[in-house]
C-alpha cells in the first residue's frame, strides 16, 4: 500500500499536473481568506498563496523547476493579461487625457524615486553590488525587470522575487499610506500604486475600483518603459559616485 502510494507520488511529482493544480488550489484558498477578511490588504492573496506553496514544496522536497513545469501555464497568461489591460485603459481614456500633466509628472517623479531609493538604501546597509543591481528595476513588471537586471549585471531570478515582494508590499501598504495622506481620488491612488508596485498593485487596484485599476495599468506600462530607459544610466552614475 505504501509502495503504491509512493509510486503514485513518483508519477505525480514529475508531471506538470501537480504544479498546476496546487497553484490553483493554493490561490483559491488564499483568495477565500482574502474575501472573508473583507478584502483586507493585509490578507494579500499572492502572499498567502506563495506561502502555502513554498511550505508544500519544501515539505514534499519538490524542486522549484519541477513545480514550475506545471505552474508555467499560469505564468504564461501574464502575457495575454498584460495585453488585456488595454481594455480598461480604453474605458478610462477620457479621464486619463484630462489628467495628462499629473500623470506625466507623477510618472517621472515616481520612477526616479523607485530606482534611486532602492539602490541607495541597499548600499547604505551594505548589500552586495549584484544585489543592488538586482534591486534597481524592482518596481516594474516581472518580464521587464528581469530583462533590465540581466543587462546591468544583476541576477534576473532574484529580481523576479524582489519584484513580487515589492508588489505585495505596495498592495498591502498603499491604502494606509493614501488614507494618511488624505489622497482620495481613485485615479491618483491607482496611478501611484501602479508606479510603485506594477501588476500586483494593479491587481489589488482592480479589486477596489475600476478607475483605480485602469490608472494602475497605465502607470505600470509607462513605468516599465521609462525604467528600462533610466536604470542603465542611473546605476552607472550611482556606481561612479560611490
Amino acid at each position, binding site marked *: 500500500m505504501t509502495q503504491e502510494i509512493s509510486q503514485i507520488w513518483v508519477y505525480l511529482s514529475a508531471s506538470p499536473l501537480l504544479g498546476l493544480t496546487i497553484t490553483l488550489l493554493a490561490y483559491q484558498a488564499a483568495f477565500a481568506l482574502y474575501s472573508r477578511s473583507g478584502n483586507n490588504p493585509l490578507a494579500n492573496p499572492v502572499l498567502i498563496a506563495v506561502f502555502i506553496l513554498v511550505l508544500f514544496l519544501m515539505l514534499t522536497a519538490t524542486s*522549484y523547476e519541477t513545480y514550475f513545469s506545471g505552474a508555467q501555464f499560469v505564468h504564461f497568461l501574464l502575457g495575454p493579461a498584460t495585453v488585456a489591460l*488595454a481594455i480598461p485603459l480604453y474605458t478610462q481614456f477620457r479621464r486619463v487625457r484630462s489628467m495628462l500633466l499629473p500623470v506625466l509628472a507623477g510618472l517621472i517623479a515616481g520612477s526616479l524615486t523607485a530606482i534611486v531609493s532602492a539602490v541607495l538604501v541597499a548600499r547604505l546597509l551594505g548589500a552586495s553590488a549584484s544585489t543592488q543591481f538586482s534591486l534597481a528595476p524592482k518596481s516594474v513588471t516581472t518580464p521587464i525587470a528581469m530583462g533590465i537586471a540581466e543587462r546591468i549585471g544583476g541576477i534576473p531570478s532574484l529580481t523576479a522575487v524582489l519584484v513580487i515582494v515589492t508588489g505585495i508590499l505596495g498592495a498591502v501598504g498603499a491604502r494606509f499610506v493614501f488614507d494618511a495622506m488624505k489622497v482620495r481620488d481613485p485615479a491618483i491612488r491607482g496611478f501611484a500604486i501602479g508606479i510603485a508596485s506594477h501588476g500586483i498593485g494593479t491587481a489589488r487596484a*482592480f479589486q477596489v475600483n475600476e478607475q483605480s485599476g485602469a490608472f494602475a495599468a497605465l502607470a505600470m506600462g509607462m513605468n516599465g518603459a521609462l525604467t528600462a530607459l533610466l536604470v542603465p544610466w542611473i546605476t552607472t552614475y550611482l556606481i561612479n559616485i560611490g
Partner: protein
Amino acid sequence: MIFALSALLVFQLAGEVLARSLSLPIPGPVIGMLMLFVALVLRGGPGEELQTTSQNLLQHLSLLFVPAGTGIMIHLHRVSDEWLPLLVSLLVSTLATLVVTALVMKLCQRSPAPSKEAP
C-alpha cells in the same frame, strides 16, 4: 472566448515581433497592449466578447504572479544572508514611491491650470 483569446495572443505576438526586430527596451506584451489600445480607439471600443474575456482574465490577475513569487524558495540563501538591506530597501523604496507619486500628482492637479472659462 476563443476569438478574444486569439485576439489577445495575436497582439502579444505582434508586440513581441516588433520589440525584438527593433530591439526595443519594452517587452512584447506591453507593446501589444499599446497596439490593442490604438486598435480600440480606431474601432471605437471592444466587442462584447473581448470585454468579458479580458474582465475574467484581469479579475484574477494576482493568480498569475503566484508561480514567479514561489521562486523565492530558490533564493532563500541570499535572502536570508542579506535580508535586512533587502527588506529595508524594498520597504523604504516602495513607501517613498507611493508617497512621492501621489504627492506630485496632487500638486500638479491643484496648481491653477490655465482655465478655459477665465476671460
